[in-house]
């Protein structure tokens, strides 16, 4: 079975309110799955359920062939989890803490020293092994949290907003670290930062209010983000109907007497036609730009699509 983690019909209710509704997804070996959504969308709840910290109200989770609910010990041996706040004992040194994580993750005594050393090296903790965790910067604490999650070489690593609260340099370093981890483990991460998903993930799931709205590869998301409208300023504009009649143009919105937004079918950009026509017809083109979709736009678009269906 190539699917390392597989969730079906995952739901979670708090009282009457559904926080997560009927999520279905799977992660294959070596894949990075990103959960994208605004705050309060149910990302953390989903991560908690996947890591066994919270039982789902409905649905099943299979990790590396073990049912998380029926065989929690075996299933949990194959996951590493870093919650939003790294779970650390601040009074321990980095080396002591990692040695403890190795113990509770049932790493045999003979392999323990090697596991701790390798994880210290991989997470760039060599200089701070003897320091107390409480005295480390947030970035290093996050690294210790990640080290703890991967020390037993789990099949799936679950990271809940791994870069929140870090400064830009730390964010870059942590992303690099996650990319390295992804070479050896499957990773599920949640975030509300779109570039992070683009940089790190193979698969994207967008959720809002506990519902899965969009599930595709990163290329699919790029397509969604691709612009399909132009912003055009013409000082001597023709009649709107002339613009609408251009090939591939679907809709023309007039924003002001001289400004237009031209929506076109994807893969058929009418910019060139407009430029050449503006020269021959003397429309006095002043501005032409393709509109970039931000995450909000994509997000709103996906939510709107969902509501239309």
């Amino acid at each position, binding site marked *: 079975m190539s699917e390392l983690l597989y969730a079906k019909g995952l739901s979670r209710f708090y009282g009457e309110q559904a926080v997560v509704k009927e999520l279905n997804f799977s992660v294959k070996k070596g894949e990075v799955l990103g959960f994208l959504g605004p705050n309060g969308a149910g990302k953390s709840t989903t991560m908690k359920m996947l890591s066994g910290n919270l*039982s789902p109200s409905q649905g099943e989770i299979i990790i590396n062939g073990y049912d998380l609910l029926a065989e929690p010990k075996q299933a*949990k*041996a194959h996951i590493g989890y870093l919650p939003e706040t790294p*779970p650390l004992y601040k*009074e*321990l040194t980095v080396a002591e803490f990692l040695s403890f994580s190795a113990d509770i993750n049932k790493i045999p005594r003979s392999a323990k020293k090697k596991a701790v050393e390798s994880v210290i090296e991989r997470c760039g903790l060599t200089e701070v092994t003897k320091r107390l965790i409480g005295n480390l910067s947030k970035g290093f604490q996050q690294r210790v949290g990640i080290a*703890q999650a991967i020390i037993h070489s789990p099949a799936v690593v679950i990271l809940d907003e791994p870069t929140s609260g870090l400064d830009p340099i730390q964010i870059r370093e942590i992303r690099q670290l996650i990319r390295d981890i992804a070479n050896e483990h499957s990773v599920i991460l949640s975030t509300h930062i779109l570039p992070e998903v683009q940089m790190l993930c193979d698969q994207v799931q967008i959720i809002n209010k506990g519902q899965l709205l969009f599930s595709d590869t990163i290329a699919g998301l790029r397509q969604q983000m691709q612009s399909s409208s132009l912003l055009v300023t013409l000082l001597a504009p023709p009649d709107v109907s002339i613009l609408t009649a251009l090939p591939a143009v679907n809709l023309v919105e007039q924003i002001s007497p001289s400004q237009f937004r031209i929506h076109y079918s994807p893969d058929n950009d009418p910019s060139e036609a407009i430029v050449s026509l503006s020269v021959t017809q003397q429309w006095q083109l002043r501005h032409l730009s393709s509109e970039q979709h931000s995450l909000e736009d994509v997000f709103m678009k996906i939510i709107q699509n969902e509501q239309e269906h």
Partner: protein
Amino acid sequence: MFALAKNELYRLFLSPLAWIILALSQLILAYLFLSHIDYFIQVQGRLSAIPGAPGVTQSIAIPLFSNAATLLLLISPLITMRLIAEERRNESLPLLLSAPLSIVDIVLGKYLATYAFFLLLLLLISLMPLSLAVASPLDYRLLAAAILGLSLLLASFTAIGLYLSSLTKQPAIAAMTTFASLFLLWIIDWAGTNADSSGLFSWLSLLRHYQRLLQGEVHSSDIAYYLIIVATFLILTIRRLDSERLN
């Protein structure tokens, strides 16, 4: 489970609290111990004239164990309060919950670590009366009964404290509720002294069972009482942590 217990005990000794509790309880009990000796030396001449009068063990060691129980009632909530409440406040509980450990492992690990600490304290307390062996014959059976009694009492203190710590996020609240519960269980037999119908209350009293052990009477019913208390509160803790994942 044992890895968890080892770590728990290690972290306990990293905090100054454990050392301070060990040092100060030793100081107070040593003072009481010395004053009991002092008193015994004063009355020794008169006691020797009475046949069947209390001996060294009965007049020095037993009052010491009785005092120690009261002192430990006051300080044990300070040790047990942090067990789960602090993990919750630091949000470090997911570390244990997502590791391949069952809730039973987690609860027993924490329980064993704390109990090991109290047994160490008990050892230090027991050394005081044992040091009298240099100068005087001791009633070792009576002493053994008292040590057994205190160890059972501490086992139940730990279990009750662990449960109350699992109910809250604030260690201070855990300490206060533990202290109140222990104190209530301590004095609950006061209600039993004036009415005949309150056999249940006096049976519930932690003190009543301890006193019988201090008199050198080892009844299996008293031992069973403490074991029932320990088992009950451990099961309640396990259930509490389990239900947290469900709700």
